[in-house]
């Protein structure tokens, strides 16, 4: 059991919200307390070290800046301010203003400029303060970056990484609380990844920077300050996490929970609760990669469990959940013992008031209850 639970337990062992991210959600505290109870089993794994997701991202960029002079980072407040969320902290001091570049607040312009630099052979990391603002620049991401290779008949690649926080934060209202996984995931030519843990964050970001295609890297503001143990291998500068491979974060035989980004952690908590209360074992799949989607892992799991719930925090209509369910139906219908279900954000512009906001997004309790309902336990 300990092996299956390792990532969650480690998350728990050190779960905390960084001081620079003051907006704590009650449900994160839940996951932290769960994890703390598991702490003893994993405290002595050799060579592991606690990393916040923020530190993991920072290290990934520092290593890639170090290794390839064509890599540079540009975005609003990435240099002197040290990053709006401190993800690029210290990079200006270390690499100078040629490689770490503050831009004016002109998403469309600097995103287009980064795309041009990528077409010319550089490997930019284009940071959006949040992906909400990237809507100003989505034409450049979709039309200039994603399609150029195909339109040129394969002669003009575009090695660029678009990154920044995605999805809802806490109390920031409708315009700053949107999940773009499904938006970017629908575009051929883009690769889209979304990390949950610190290892995900580091390995996927390094892979994104090295990947010769345009990659959209969707972070989560609420995860920046969360600590995870990082294995010795992951601490090295050659660590990458391959795209298109999901990670089974928790093994189970009764139900498959497919999730990405922050909701993976919620699924882990719900899964543990389901075991305690009902004795059922839920398998939790951390997708890591939105595009390409690891269909194989999902179907393999469904073969074993016969039941699937997708959990994500985007809007429901034509969202990640819709894609996962459709895919499951297409490739795994015969293995399903019950209709696959989805838990998503509610179909409302995100409200400001805390109680209403909580009604808009998946919680551990909702996941647990809905799973219990599906399992008829």
């Amino acid at each position: 059991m300990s092996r299956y639970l390792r990532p969650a337990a480690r998350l728990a062992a050190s779960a905390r919200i960084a001081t620079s991210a003051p907006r704590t959600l009650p449900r994160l505290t839940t996951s932290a307390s769960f994890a703390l109870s598991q702490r003893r089993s994993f405290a002595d794994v050799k060579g592991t070290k606690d990393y916040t997701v923020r530190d993991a991202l920072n290290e990934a960029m520092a290593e890639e800046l170090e290794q390839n002079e064509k890599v540079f980072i540009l975005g609003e407040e990435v240099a002197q301010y040290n990053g709006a969320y401190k993800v690029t902290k210290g990079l200006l001091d270390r690499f100078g203003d040629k490689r770490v570049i503050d831009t004016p607040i002109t998403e469309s312009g600097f995103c287009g400029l980064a795309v041009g630099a990528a077409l010319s052979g550089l490997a930019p990391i284009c940071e959006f303060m949040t992906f909400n603002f990237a809507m100003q620049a989505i034409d450049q991401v979709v039309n200039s970056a994603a399609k150029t290779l195909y339109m040129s008949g394969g002669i003009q690649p575009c090695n660029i990484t678009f990154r920044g926080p995605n999805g809802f934060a806490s109390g920031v209202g409708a315009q700053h609380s949107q999940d773009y996984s499904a938006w970017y995931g629908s575009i051929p030519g883009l690769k889209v990844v979304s990390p949950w843990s610190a290892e995900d964050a580091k390995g996927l970001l390094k892979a994104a920077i090295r990947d010769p295609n345009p990659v959209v890297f969707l972070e989560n503001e609420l995860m920046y300050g969360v600590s995870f143990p990082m294995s010795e291998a992951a601490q090295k500068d050659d660590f990458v996490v391959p795209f298109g491979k999901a990670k089974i974060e928790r093994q189970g035989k009764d139900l498959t929970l497919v999730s990405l980004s922050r909701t993976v952690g919620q699924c882990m908590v719900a899964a543990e609760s389901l075991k305690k209360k009902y004795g059922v074992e839920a398998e939790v799949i951390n997708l890591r990669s939105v595009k390409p989607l690891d269909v194989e892992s999902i179907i393999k799991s469904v073969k074993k469990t016969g039941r699937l719930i997708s959990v994500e925090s985007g809007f429901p209509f034509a969202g990640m959940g819709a894609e996962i369910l459709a895919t499951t139906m297409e490739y795994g219908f015969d293995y399903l013992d019950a209709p696959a279900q989805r838990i998503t954000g509610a179909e409302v512009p995100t409200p400001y008031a805390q109680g209403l906001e909580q009604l808009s997004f998946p919680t551990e309790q909702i996941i647990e209850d809905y799973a219990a309902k599906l399992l008829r336990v």
Partner: protein
Amino acid sequence: MFSRALRVPRATTPLVRARVAITRPSTVAALRSVTTNAASSHADKAAVPDADDQPFQVILSDESFETYELDPPSYTLDVTKKELKDMYSNMVVTRQMEMAADRLYKEKKIRGFCHLSTGQEAVAVGIEHALTKEDDVITAYRCHGFALMRGASVRSIIGELLGRREGIAYGKGGSMHMFTKGFYGGNGIVGAQVPVGAGLAFAHKYMGRKNASVILYGDGASNQGQVFEAFNMAKLWGLPALFGCENNKYGMGTAAARSSALTDYYKRGQYIPGLKVNGMDVLAVKAAVKYGKEWTIAENGPLVLEYVTYRYGGHSMSDPGTTYRTREEIQRMRSTNDPIAGLKQKILDWGVCNEEELKTLDKEARKHVTEEVAAAEAMAFPENKPEILFEDVYVRGSEPQFLRGRTPDENFYFSS
């Protein structure tokens, strides 16, 4: 107010501007417009050398340029007979190619959108003669001439228009999306190429290369917000970017004055010096871009150029081009300001070569284009198979395991 603006005949525009000039004396200079005379430069016939590759001096018309916060370029330009003949041939081939595209489109062999640059040849040709292959060019969808000048063959361009496998983009791009070394498209989204072009300039500076990026957009695109975003960053970071508005007087069917609060496009960089140039005179274009390149790679930052030109045809093949302008206007430009006829006249005046030789050049160009078009028409279409449909969505070797077809049965699995 809008409806009135719609009805104001073009001839009254100078009056409106004159009134502005009275209230704001500082804009008097704006009244003097660059000429669009394609044959306004001079050379001393006696000074033209016999040898093909020996330079001699041409004096450009003093109405070739207008500047904004910038010393004008030199009004003299060193050329050789060979170069003049090259320029002439280049323009003739470009026009012949566009005319071939026009014919093929009308024969329904070319699909979708097709934007021709007939009348605007001097811009693409003049720019190319001022650059090296290490410099970059990026433009919008009216890109055939630029692709040709950057080194693409006529057959690869026509082949692309015909959707053939040996087209410049292997039949994947079409009329609006052509790429070759130093040429980055071919962008179908009006204005989107401008920040991308600033990025090309950024890369030159980042890598320490002494090269410039020539970024073209139309008078229509010049009002896009991202154009100004690109101006701002280019100036801020001193990028070697030569922004250039190809002002052909109409953004699709909307006359410049009906879309732009300030039609002096070379002044629209505000804090960026500007240079307006006679875009019908290939020599003036070359002189301006040569000067601009030297200026910008000397770390003086970007420039905003305006090439005053004219498109004879409609916006695209589906536009007859006559609802928003008069046939007389088109006829006048064609007959008195044509860039090819203008250069031809100069070549004859200066005794660069005689009429016979020019006719030979014309014939060669026509023959070349005819052969190339025939070669393009003989090219095979891409085979309609998944290996070709799904290739190059991602860089080879970095593809996902599979891409989905219309049904799961049609999924394409990459072997690697």
